[in-house]
């Protein structure tokens, strides 16, 4: 657990509970900014999909008035939003052009809170929305698994449903335990060295990243931990070169979902002949996140992503787990929807 995240979560709760009786609460967002919001906020605009999933697990769908206009992304989503929220397709949309939120369409939604992704308190969109429209902005900045879980508390405060938030956290922990009850006892010597492959192939996850947490909880060890170069090791998204990767010699290569590349390409492709002496390739241990939305490590579905990775890293230890049933049970408990049939439970 990251100490900073725990302190932030506690502070957030204390601040929220202390003034909950008055309807207006002060919470700290992921960037440490104090934000005054209504609890519950009744006209929320979500400018990011991951946090929306969390909100749908906790809060009242009716309180969402607009969403980011992400048409191409939505086409790719085989998702549960319209099942949870019958008005999902009718929500107003807010476009983002060149990274800037369209203030006019945002104003049209008349929000009392905007939730968006930002990496710095000086983010231009935060300033524009708060200063121009006078609407509070809650900034999401997820860097670790703890941040994903902390997001549930945040949505509890925003929707004034702390009890449900506690339940959701409990569900997440229960499903994480399916994995961690097994992996926590795996000795260091049996933990495979994992190279995480983002879509840029030689781009990977540094040791200070959410993916690093995921690999460790799944019973592996991030191969970047063995990098001689501390700068690269500490970067969130270092780009290695092939010689460095051969030297690190990972036991497993784990690919993020890549539309242009499959594990088979790494194992036998003409363009990957230089990879043939890496243990992961020699032993055929190249895996891929097969569905980036179902196994999204930065959303409440993180426990499923964790189990997915752990089952590939340690197939013998998870041979009794029925993944399809686990996915369905998880969706029923989180959102009251069967998966993949998308029927209401």
């Amino acid at each position, binding site marked *: 657990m990251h100490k900073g995240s725990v302190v932030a979560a506690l502070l957030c709760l204390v601040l929220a509970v202390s003034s909950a009786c008055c309807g207006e609460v002060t919470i700290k967002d992921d960037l440490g900014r104090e934000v005054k919001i209504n609890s519950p906020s009744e006209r929320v605009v979500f400018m990011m999909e991951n946090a929306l999933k969390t909100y749908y697990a906790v809060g009242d769908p009716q309180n969402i008035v607009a969403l980011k206009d992400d*048409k*191409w*992304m939505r086409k790719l989503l085989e998702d549960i939003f319209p099942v949870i929220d019958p008005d999902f397709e009718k929500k107003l949309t807010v476009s*983002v*052009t*060149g990274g800037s939120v369209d203030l006019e369409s945002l104003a049209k939604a008349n929000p009392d809170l905007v939730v968006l992704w930002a990496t710095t308190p000086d983010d231009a969109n935060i300033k524009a929305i708060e200063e121009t429209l006078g609407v509070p902005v809650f900034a999401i900045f997820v860097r670790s698994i703890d941040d994903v879980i902390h997001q549930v508390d945040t949505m509890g405060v925003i929707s004034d449903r702390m009890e449900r938030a506690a339940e959701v956290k409990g569900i997440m922990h229960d499903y994480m335990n399916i994995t961690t009850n097994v992996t926590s006892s795996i000795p260091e010597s049996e933990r495979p060295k994992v190279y995480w492959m*983002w*879509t*840029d*192939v*030689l*781009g990977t996850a540094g040791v200070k990243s959410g993916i690093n947490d995921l690999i460790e909880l799944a019973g592996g060890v991030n191969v970047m931990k063995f*990098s001689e*170069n*501390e*700068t*690269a090791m500490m*970067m969130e*998204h*270092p*780009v*290695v*070169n*092939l*010689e*460095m990767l*051969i*030297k690190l010699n990972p036991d497993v290569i784990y690919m*993020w979902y890549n*539309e*242009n590349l499959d594990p088979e390409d790494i194992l036998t492709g*003409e*363009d*990957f*002949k*230089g990879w*043939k*002496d890496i243990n992961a390739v020699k032993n055929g241990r190249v895996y891929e996140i097969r569905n980036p939305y179902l196994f999204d490590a930065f959303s409440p579905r993180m426990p499923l992503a964790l189990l997915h990775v752990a089952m590939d890293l340690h197939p013998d230890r998870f041979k009794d787990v029925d993944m399809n049933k686990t996915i369905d049970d998880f969706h029923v408990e989180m959102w009251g929807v069967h998966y993949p049939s998308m029927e209401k439970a």
Partner: protein
Amino acid sequence: MTVGSQMPYKKYIYIFLLISPLIAMVLSLLIGKFAIAPGDVIRLVIFNLLAAETSYPGVYHTVIFEVRLPRIFLGMLVGASLSVAGAAFQGIFRNPLVSPYILGLSSGAAFGAALALAVAPQFPVQISALFFSLVAVGFAYYIATSRGSTPIISLLLAGVIVSAVFDSLLSIIQMAVNERALQSIVYWLMGSLAAASWSKIYSALPMSLLGCAVIFLLRWRLNVLAMGDEEARSVGMNPELYKAVFVVAASLAASSVVSVVGIIGFVGLVIPHMIRMIFGPDHTHLIPLCITFGAAFMVLVDVIARVGMGFEVPVGVITTLIGAPFFAYLLRSTRSGGWE
């Protein structure tokens, strides 16, 4: 004109630049993140040439012959192709600010790559980039041609128009895709030799060689074209025909490598200038030296890109950081950059 006739020491520089790819190749082969002693590298190469068996670990063989060598040869191909294409375009346009990307080639390639990376993954990135880069150049040429004539100024403006259109289309894709796809597009745009492989070299080689060979064989005609259409006609040359031939050849050479490695800037602009500043504007010397020094420059810059820092830096970034100060120095120490 002979090279040695003006200043004797230029003859040695000339010879040095001609053999520079060999020097760069040896140096680059010895340096890498995977530590192999220089003696072992040399012995392995010799044993491999003699088809003799060695007791070295297999991984040594992989690092030298499947990682370093493809990267070196691809770097040479890229450097030579972009430099020659840049020199040809500068000659045709009679303009020192021209790069191989003047007719929208890079914008078309970027759009094609983004399309394949983020929207239509069923199309290979390389083929999509190549197709749209050639479409962009063809479109620019079509816009500029009127009544059988292609005025240089029209061609320049058509290049601006086509680049703007493809840049806008690229922006639409960038705005609409998710963060991970956007990251892939941005990395591709920066240009990198990190994914070099023999198969990529083989796929780029035929078009690149064809384009470079045509420019090399017809290089003296660039001297005539560079004097203007009227002068070309006065010596019995059809300027429209040769302009088209050089545009097609330069575009083939540049497109074939850009589609493989992404957009690497500055090389196509700066290498011809560097050579011209030392040896003057005669294309009979300029073109062969652009091939050799362009190849060597790219390989040396890539050494810095792969081992200079703790992580892989896109080579396009380094070409600019290294090339710009050297170019500035030459510019200050020669008159009008060798154009006079």
